């Protein structure tokens, strides 16, 4: 809602980008190693961190007001429930 611009410095953006690349490498590493069901949890955890970084900095959610944050939280919770429910299948097959 706030119309002010928030400028994130190049340095910070680059650092986050490098972080994302490192996490991508980690995803590939997890996929290549047989860690059982930890493979699913690991990949999901990495994806959450990456998504969080993108939303917080690249999409500026860190600098937004409460309402938007709550809405996002609500939408993500719904998504988490959806994904969570598939585990009734995946974990017990």
């Amino acid at each position, binding site marked *: 809602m706030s119309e002010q611009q928030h400028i994130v410095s190049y340095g910070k953006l680059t650092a986050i980008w490098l972080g994302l690349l490192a996490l991508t490498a980690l995803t590939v590493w997890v*996929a290549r190693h047989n860690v059982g069901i930890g493979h699913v949890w690991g990949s999901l955890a990495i994806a959450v961190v990456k998504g969080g970084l993108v939303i917080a900095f690249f999409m500026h959610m860190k600098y937004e007001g409460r309402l938007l944050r709550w809405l996002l939280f609500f*939408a993500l919770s*719904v*998504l988490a*429930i*959806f994904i969570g*429910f*598939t585990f*009734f*299948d*995946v*974990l*017990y*097959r």
Partner: protein
Amino acid sequence: MIPVENVPPAGDGGFWNDTGKTGITAWIFSTDHKRIGLLYFYSVLTFFLIAVVLGVLLRIELMAPGRTIMGPQTYNAVFTVHGVVMVFLFIIPGFQGSFGNLVMPIQIGARDVAFPRLNLFSWWLYIAGAAVIITSLFTGGGPPDTGWTFYVPFSERTGTNVSLAVFGVFIVGFSSIVTGLNFVTTIHRLRAEGMTWGRLPLFVWSLYATAWVQILATPILGITLALIIAERFLGTGLFDPARGGDPLMYQHLFWIYSHPAVYIMILPGMGVISEIIPAFARKPIFGYKMIAFSSLAIAAAGSLVWGHHMFTSGMSDTAILVFSFLTFVVAIPSAIKVFNWVSTLYRGSISLEAPMLFALAFILLFSIGGLTGLILGAAATDIHVHDTQFVVGHFHYVIFGGAVFAFFGAMHYWLPKFYGRRYAEKPAVVAWVLMFVGFNITYFTMMVLGMKGMPRRYYDYLPEFAPLNLVSTIGSWILVSGLILMLVNLFRGLFKGEPIDRNPWGAATLEWTIPTPPPTENFEEEPVVTHGPYDFKGAGIP
């Protein structure tokens, strides 16, 4: 009652006059919610009629064993296109786009929706998506033949034009999200003074619940469809076990959206019924709060039952148990609604006019659809009838007998308000009888066939199924003759029929307090709401 005003000819008066633009641009670039509502209405109606023709062709093919009018490949394409058009181009955008747009802003006392341009954009997205889907039928490898569910691995391997069709559905989904956002915002921000949440008409409550489903579930459809395209073009292997993928993941993703989508189809229909019944029983609705609450409960609980489509897929037993249980839970809020409608009827002074007849048909047909749904929701019985004609009969009871009959009811109830003229009652009743009888002959027979073991999605069947298939096909002709009579009578009435005054049905919601047809800005001055939506005494209606 207010005397009949000096009614101008059809297509004149109120919002019909204000243009500023001329010809077709006065419509396709209009941001007036009423004009966009009519744009949507005629668009979805056109697609409905096209898909009805395809449905009738399917039934003709099934009239006798063996090849009747088409071969297996054509049959596969026809049921796929029938399903895709009915679901994605008619009933999902149908209610929100047409009657949601036409009526909702007026019912809450607003001049328009919160984002009128976004509203127009939503219609354009819908048309663009529809154009892409239509293009997919005539280009590339020809019309898709996967069924409307686009299940992998077949949808990845078939040579038909799946990618383009799926892309079209993707765009239409975007339009649905945009409308959902618009409606949630509108209902939160633009209610007139005194229009508290407790005075919101139940149709608005149902649109509100639906809008949330559209916002939260449709993106998942988008992702799923995008993944099919990725699989086809890039061979990502996401759904391919040979490369570490999981074909069941597709079914999860697809139904995470598509079961809630069933509520996008039916909830607004339930809202319409909750408007029609009190108006024609001349009684405040029984259990207003529970009906409003059950819309939200259906939307929430209904989002967690998708696994009931997968009982025979090889999904884990734990998941079968959980999803089967939750499916039964959704029956509770649905039953609450049915009980409340019936209680409203009890001791009402009922007038059996066309909208009411459609509402009554809805209650019966939806109940049959819902109860047969429990047979499918119980894992043990589902194993026997999964993927048979029983399923086809069941979901036509819910979507056609439920949602589409409610849509017809809404056409008779609300369209006269916007045209200033009405249909003739007698032919409307005859049409209703024909459709009701034809409907049951067509689809009840299909359920029986399914119980006997006839599978769905086949152009041929064993000779022992022949007699009942013939009955079902004849039923579809009765159904369609009723449909034609209904449409002819309705539209003839809207353009040439008897003029009506503000409130022909004596209903108590806001749209009946403004002139017929409604002026461009709806209300001459900001309305102040002083009574509930079904408080006939408070509205001064005898």
